[in-house]
Every structure is written in C-alpha cells, then in structure tokens.
C-alpha cells in the first residue's frame, strides 16, 4: 500500500511504528530501546531536519530506513517501496556520520566505485563525477588519495557520493559536522538547490540555527521517541504585534479591521491585535492620524532552539527522566514605543 502526501504524490519517506531494541549481555538482560515506534511522513520536495540530543536515535532511524540495521517492530517505506527491498535504495543518496570511506582510493576512483554500484554507465559516471566534485568544491582534488583528506573534505566527498546519481531523496547524518563556516554555507546552498530541483532532503543535525534557516519541516527525537514533528511555520508561529491607542473612532476602526485579528476596548485604551506583523506601519499611520500616541507591543516568536529545549524538557518530565542537561530559554516579550 502506498501512502500519499497531501498533493497525492507518494511520500518520499514514511515509517509506521518503526522500533529498534538492542539486546546485549550473555543472558540478554541488557536492553536498549534506541527507537520507539517512530511514525513519520515526509512529503517529496521538502527539507526535513531531524533533531535530538546525542543518543536520541536519529542515526538509528536513518540506518533503519536504509536497511543497514533490522527493525524489531514496525515498517518503513521509501517512495512506497519497503525498506527491506534493495530497490528502495535506488533513488536514495546517503552520507553517514563521520565517514572515512576507502582511504586507499583517490577521490575520483572512489566515486567511480560508487557509480558502478549505482549501475551508472561509463559516460554517466564520467560526467557526474566531474559535476559532483565541482559541486562540493573538490574538483582540484580528484586525483588525491582519500587518506590525505581533512575531516571537512571527507564530508564533501561523502556528499559527492550521496548526490552522484541525482537521488530523489538525500539522507544525511550530521552533514554539517566538520565543516567550516564556508563549508556550511556551501552545503546549505547545495541542499537548497536540491530542494529547488524537487528533491527531498532529510538530515540530522545539532546546529539548530542552520536547521531553522533551511528546513520546511522538523522532527524532534528524545530518547527514541518522536516528541514533536511538523512544519516550522506551524511549530514556530510568526511573531505577532499588538498596538494600543487612547482613542479610536468608527472610521479608523473600519480601516483597521481588514488586517486585525481583534480590536478590543480595555479600560482607558484600545488594543488592536494585528493579523500580520508586516501591517504594523500602516496600522500605526491610521492611529497617528487621530493624534494617538500608539504603543506597540511585540511578542517575539519562539526560536527553534528554545522550542527544542522546551519540548525535550517537557518530554523528560513526562517520562520521569529529570532535568534537562541544557538551560531552557523562555520566549521573550519586547516592548517598544512607536512615535
């Protein structure tokens, strides 16, 4: 059965109760639930950020999707094909966390090997190897042994092999690790370009500011459980603006109504809740026309970092795991006077 996204297209990635429990010890008494019933859907053409503290189960989930480890329960599909079927991986590119690859090969030899495994013909391989090396900024290192590569260069060659066959879905495990600011900027541009081409990007990261900047959707894992998932716009609503005024006549009220969520009288002043923060100047202009000293009250939106810590803390408390390791920042309220 193929599950479809909102536009009727098959989901790029889908899991249903996907779980992984590691069992260890001679009497199998040591049990670690690395992933607990992960149910997730990622539509095509999205950039999905997979977040969570260390050991939350992000890499486990990615390895399960690629069939590198076997689930103890649940199922998963890539473009509607079961993750147990090797055909599911035909349209997928993958970059593992902290890779080292075939250190005895040169960069182009390694990509040649990957191209062969991807069943690309000779001409395709030649073209794509040159293109991907150029894309990741390693075209001058094609003949260099991978053993001589720095960590950042390893990430780049890893990205090159992941994008070699122009996959429809790119799974990246901590792709920003080891990259300098220039490398991060370039990687973000590459991932945005993938999205522009209609490709789906699914990546795990600890760098929340980058995730917030790039992603359409995020999922937050904590101790194996998905604690939040959705579009960033929905999880982090845009900042809202309220205006306060001493006086408001009927004409001004009717002019303000189209872009106001509510207009209420509170004691000696009026409060106008705007639907859209960008209409602030226009609304202030209307109020000033009545000689009002308008007071703007801006409620700042929660950042992804703040949201992340809040969800992790809530989940830890719900499950009785105690205090979070990181401080939790509360959302802030700013006040400013508009002349």
């Amino acid at each position, binding site marked *: 059965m193929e599950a479809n996204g909102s536009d009727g297209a098959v989901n790029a990635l889908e899991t249903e109760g996907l779980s992984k429990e590691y069992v260890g010890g001679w009497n199998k008494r040591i049990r670690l639930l690395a992933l607990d019933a992960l149910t997730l859907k990622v539509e095509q053409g999205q950039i999905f950020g997979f977040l969570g503290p260390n050991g939350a189960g992000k890499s486990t989930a990615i390895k399960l999707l690629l069939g*590198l480890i076997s689930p103890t329960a649940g199922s998963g599909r890539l473009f509607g094909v079961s993750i147990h079927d*090797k055909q599911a991986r035909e349209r*997928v590119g993958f970059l593992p966390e902290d890779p080292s690859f075939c250190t005895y090969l040169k960069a182009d030899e390694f990509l040649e090997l990957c191209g062969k495994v991807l069943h690309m013909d000779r001409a395709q391989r030649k073209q794509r190897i040159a293109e991907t090396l150029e894309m990741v900024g390693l075209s001058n290192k094609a003949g260099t042994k991978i053993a001589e590569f720095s960590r950042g260069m390893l990430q780049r060659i890893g990205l090159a092999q992941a994008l070699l066959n122009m996959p429809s879905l790119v799974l990246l495990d901590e792709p920003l690790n080891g990259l300098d600011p220039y490398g991060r900027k370039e990687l973000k541009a590459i991932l945005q370009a993938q999205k522009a081409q209609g490709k789906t990007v699914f990546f795990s990261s600890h760098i929340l500011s980058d995730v917030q900047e790039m992603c359409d959707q995020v999922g937050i894992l904590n101790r194996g459980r998905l604690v939040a998932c959705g579009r960033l716009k929905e999880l982090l609503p845009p900042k809202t603006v309220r205006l306060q005024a001493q006086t408001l006549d009927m004409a001004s009220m009717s002019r303000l109504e189209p872009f106001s969520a509510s207009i209420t009288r509170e004691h000696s002043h009026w409060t106008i809740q705007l639907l859209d923060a960008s209409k602030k100047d226009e609304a202030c202009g209307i109020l000033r026309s009545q000689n009002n000293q308008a007071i703007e009250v801006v409620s700042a939106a929660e950042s992804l970092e703040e949201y992340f810590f809040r969800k992790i803390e809530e989940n830890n408390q719900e499950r009785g795991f105690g205090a979070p390791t990181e401080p939790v920042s509360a959302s802030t309220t700013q006040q400013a006077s508009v002349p």
Partner: protein
Amino acid sequence: MNDMITICRNTYTRVLRTRSLYVLLAAVLILVAVAHLYNDLTAGRQKELMYDAGAALLTIVGLFTALVVTFDIARDLREKVVMTLLSKPLGRGHYLLGKFFGVVWLVTVNMVILTAGILWILHWEQGAWRLDFVKLAFATWGAMIMVTALGVMFASFLSELPAAVLTMVVFVAGHATEAFYRAGSLPGHFLFSVLPGFWLPDYKLEFGNGVPISSHIIILSVLYTLAYSGVLLSLAGIFFHKRDLA
C-alpha cells in the same frame, strides 16, 4: 553479477596495495632459492629440503593472503565503507561474494607467481622440471579457497581479530579431523563431520617423499574444497544478512 564483479575488483585492488604481501612473496622466493646453502646442514638432502620448503611456504603465503579477507571486511565496517556501499542498491550477498572472489583472485595470482618461481628455482638447482609441484600447488590452492571462505564466514559476524584467530584454529584443527574420526568417540565423529577436512587437499608428505598421486584424486580434493566453500559462503550470507551494521 556486475555488482559482485565491482566489489571483487575493488577488493583485489585494495589487497594488491598491501605492501607486506610483496615482502612476504619476495622473502619466500629468496628462502627457497638459498636452500642450497643448507647443504651442509642437511647431509646432502637439499633437493628434498628445497621442495619441502617450497611446499610449506606456498601454504604460508596462501594462508596469509586468504586471511586478509577477515581484516578487509572488518576494515570496511570500521571505516563505514560498508554502510556507504550497502546504502546503495547493492545486496549483502553480492558484497560478501565480491570480497571472497577478490581475495581468491589475489590468492590465485600469488600462488601462480610463487609456483612458477619455485618451479624455476627447482629446475635451476636440480636440472629437471618438477611438474608434480604443480599438482601440489593446485591442491594447496583448493585448501586456500576453503580458508578464504572460512575467513569470510567468521568475518560476517565477528570482528577482525577473533575472525582471523578462529580461521587459523579451524585450519589447524581441520588437518586433524581424520585423527578425530579414528579416535572413534561421538565428539570425534561430530568434529570430523562438521570441520573442513584440510587434510584432504594436503599432499605435501606424499609429494615430498616421491609418492605418486593421480590427478583424479587431486581434482576430487579440490572439488571437495569448492563444495565446502559454497556451504561456508551460504552460512556467511545468512549471518551477514542478520547483522546490524551499526
């Protein structure tokens, strides 16, 4: 099939870049070549010594080359090469078979070089071609295929060191399975049935003492090693399929 050939060629290329193998190969040829210097130590039996040394060193080189597979698979796992390759549409069975054939390829090349070298040295020293050495080398090659398959099987679920040690232990024990059988006990019969019979393709004693062995026997011995290797590779496939590549 193409996937398997790709992995096979890659494995061969990788192992070919192992410098220690060249050193070993050169050392062996030198050892055989200088065997005539032992004339005084062997009371005039340097011809037999050269033959025996050649046969024994052929086994040692074959064994070391075959054991490379256990380290190679483990290294692929450690460097996450396996994850990268198996995240592509490459079957685990094809990966393992590619590794096996890559190492078998190198074992074959090494043994052909060594056999040709030893034959030439024997001819140079003794003035005659000892073609029975080719039969011996062929039987040893069969044994080394079995060692490679054994290495693949152990590497499919163990890390490099236990896999290499166990391969060696089974190689040694496999030479004694006939003795286990003759002991007559139930465990002895069990070990005889289960362990690979490395004594079967081992004709060093016979050839070294000039006992003629027919080609049919040699071929049957090698067929046994191939069949047993098939079983070992099937087991390796089952173990590796179940293994979590975490």
